[in-house]
């Protein structure tokens, strides 16, 4: 188990390095960070030379990357060009706000998706199952920015015009003057979270359903039935236990992926999170922020993947107390039910 995690970690490090280097290349390709200063006629050439030296702008890109990486690892993420504030402060605040959205989404989605997935599998081909399937198609096919706009159109505009009520807000985290009011916060969170949940619930409920169905078809389920075990106990004790392993793994991985989804939603709802920070920085060519942001996002994704591996290792006894080498989780498919069924 420990070796298993160590091996995973060993592969993860080069991936982080490659990904951040690519981002570094991209950022340096977007142009000269001093362009604005250079074109100002009043700028002293001496100042420009100083700045060039300070930012190592005349060094090869690989060297610059190494400088940046060294600083980044030591917690020096630089100062924002646009706001002159340390990047760590800007990212720190935003990270908490994004976490609020992502965390709420993950918790609620897991709850709903498990329920829907299990019931759909156990009552396969029931009206409920068909409805859940229809919803999944809807969730898979709906662009979330369009869904967010529709939610606003119906739950905000229409409600306001027809009944003159304001249940939900579509801008920011609090109404001005209401900072700290929990109800107000929830009214602001509801629509962004609902938008994020559309995709996660569609995907995770489907995943849980399929993995549950796979398990229910497994030979050991038949063995249990042949023993005379009641159906309810088979579902709880035999099927769910095995079907949850891939589900938890996928949730862990997708939580990393959600970081990408939250970018769009924050932009639409002006939610003061990481996504908003990123786009503002990108539009202002605020490269220290962009760099730190992408590096963090990559690390987060890799950590989520690693978390998925660890969780998988803990839940699956074949890895936890394995006498043989752990099966390589080459894809979440293989982390999935089929492998549990037929090792």
């Amino acid at each position, binding site marked *: 188990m420990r070796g298993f995690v160590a091996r995973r970690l060993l*592969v*993860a490090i080069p*991936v982080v390095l490659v*990904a951040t280097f690519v*981002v570094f290349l*991209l950022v340096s*390709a*977007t*142009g000269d960070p001093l362009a604005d200063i250079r074109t100002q006629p009043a700028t002293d050439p001496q100042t420009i030379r100083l700045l060039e030296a300070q930012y190592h702008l005349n060094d090869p890109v690989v060297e610059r990357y190494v400088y940046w990486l060294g600083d980044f690892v030591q917690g020096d993420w630089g100062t924002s060009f646009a706001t002159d504030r340390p990047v760590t402060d800007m990212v720190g605040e935003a990270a908490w706000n994004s976490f609020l959205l992502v965390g709420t989404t993950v918790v609620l989605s897991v709850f709903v998706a498990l329920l829907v997935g299990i019931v759909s599998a156990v009552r*396969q081909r029931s009206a409920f199952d068909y409805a859940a*399937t229809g919803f999944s*198609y809807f969730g*898979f*096919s*709906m*662009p*979330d*920015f*369009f869904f967010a*706009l*529709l939610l*606003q*159109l119906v739950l905000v*505009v229409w409600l306001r015009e027809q009944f003159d009520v304001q249940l939900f807000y579509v801008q920011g985290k609090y109404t001005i003057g209401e900072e700290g009011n929990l109800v107000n916060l929830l009214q602001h969170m509801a629509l962004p979270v609902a938008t994020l949940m559309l*995709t996660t619930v*569609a*995907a*995770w409920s*489907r*995943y849980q359903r*399929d993995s549950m169905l796979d398990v229910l078809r497994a030979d050991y389920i038949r063995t249990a039935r042949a023993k005379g075990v009641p159906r309810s106990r088979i579902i709880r004790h035999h099927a769910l236990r095995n079907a949850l392993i891939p589900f938890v793994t*996928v949730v862990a*991985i*997708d939580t*990393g*992926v*959600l970081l*990408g*989804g939250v*970018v*769009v939603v924050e*932009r639409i709802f002006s939610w003061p999170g990481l*996504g908003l920070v*990123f*786009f503002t920085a*990108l539009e202002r060519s605020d490269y220290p922020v*962009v760099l730190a*942001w*992408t590096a963090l*996002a*990559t690390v987060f*994704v*890799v950590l989520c*993947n690693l978390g998925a591996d660890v969780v998988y290792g803990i839940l699956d006894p074949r890895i936890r107390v394995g006498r043989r080498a752990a099966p*390589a989780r*080459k*894809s979440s*498919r293989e982390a*999935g039910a*089929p492998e549990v069924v037929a090792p």
Partner: protein
Amino acid sequence: MSMRIGDESARTRAESIDPLLVSNEMATPEGRSEWRRALRRFRRHLPAMLGVVLLVLMAFACFVVVRFVPSPTKLHLANVYAHPSSSHWFGTDELGRDSFSRVLHGGQISLRIALGVALLSTVVGVVIGALAGFYGGWLDGLLMRFTDLWIALPALPILALAVSIGTVDLGVFGGVDLGGPLGMTLLLSLLLWGSIARVVRGATLSLREREFVDAARAMGASNTRIITRHVLPNCLGPIVVNATLVVAEAILVETTLSFLGFGIQPPTPSWGNLLSDSIGTFEDYWWLTVFPGLAIFITVLAINFVGDGLRDAIDPRRPVRV
């Protein structure tokens, strides 16, 4: 949306195709009749046939009907924000441009990009997957681990960053605007090959143990020949299914990027930028939001229907019929 790049949707689906099983069914030299059976199952799959019809209609509208509608950039300032009517089916926008025409032109661009991405990313995915599966060992471990994390990267921000570089010199291609249709196609292809690589790897792994591959090897066939002549044709089914799902992904990602302002730039219409143009006014002029949004939704839904139909057709073990 970018979650779809990380694609639980594609992941959930790709996973359910078991390359081992499919190859057992389809990969045998006597697989021809199995293909015919798969085709019959596909024809009986109601949502899939509905999807095919919707896609044909959509393609017809975007590539044929589009020639008979007013120019998408023709201004008509006396007739701004016209409601949908018989003369302007989808109404007009703030400059009096015909919204129907703009949706069709936008669709043409989105569909072209999506198809291009499906082709290119399939090529990339097949090469990587076949290499990993066929040679195995450390190469396999490295490539697949890389694929795992590549798929999970927060693609939208990275794409937005890449697009903001602007025009780059790509040698043979000349200068390519990364925010333009060609640039978007290349960028998206670089990001969406993961699921195909996984499927091809899985199928290759199981196929390379099969007798007919041994037989080919015994006859002195080179590895390249074995892969292209024996292995790939035999995992065509899963490749096609995943390529279909990549089309859906590509549409969603491209429209999202354009919506965020990092894709196709106005005045060239695209489904994404049409929606973002409408944001400020959507409370009053709903048609500018709803029609492009529905166009995306219906197209992606149709592709998902077809993809599921294909998957069920080649993998009849799944008893799930919608």
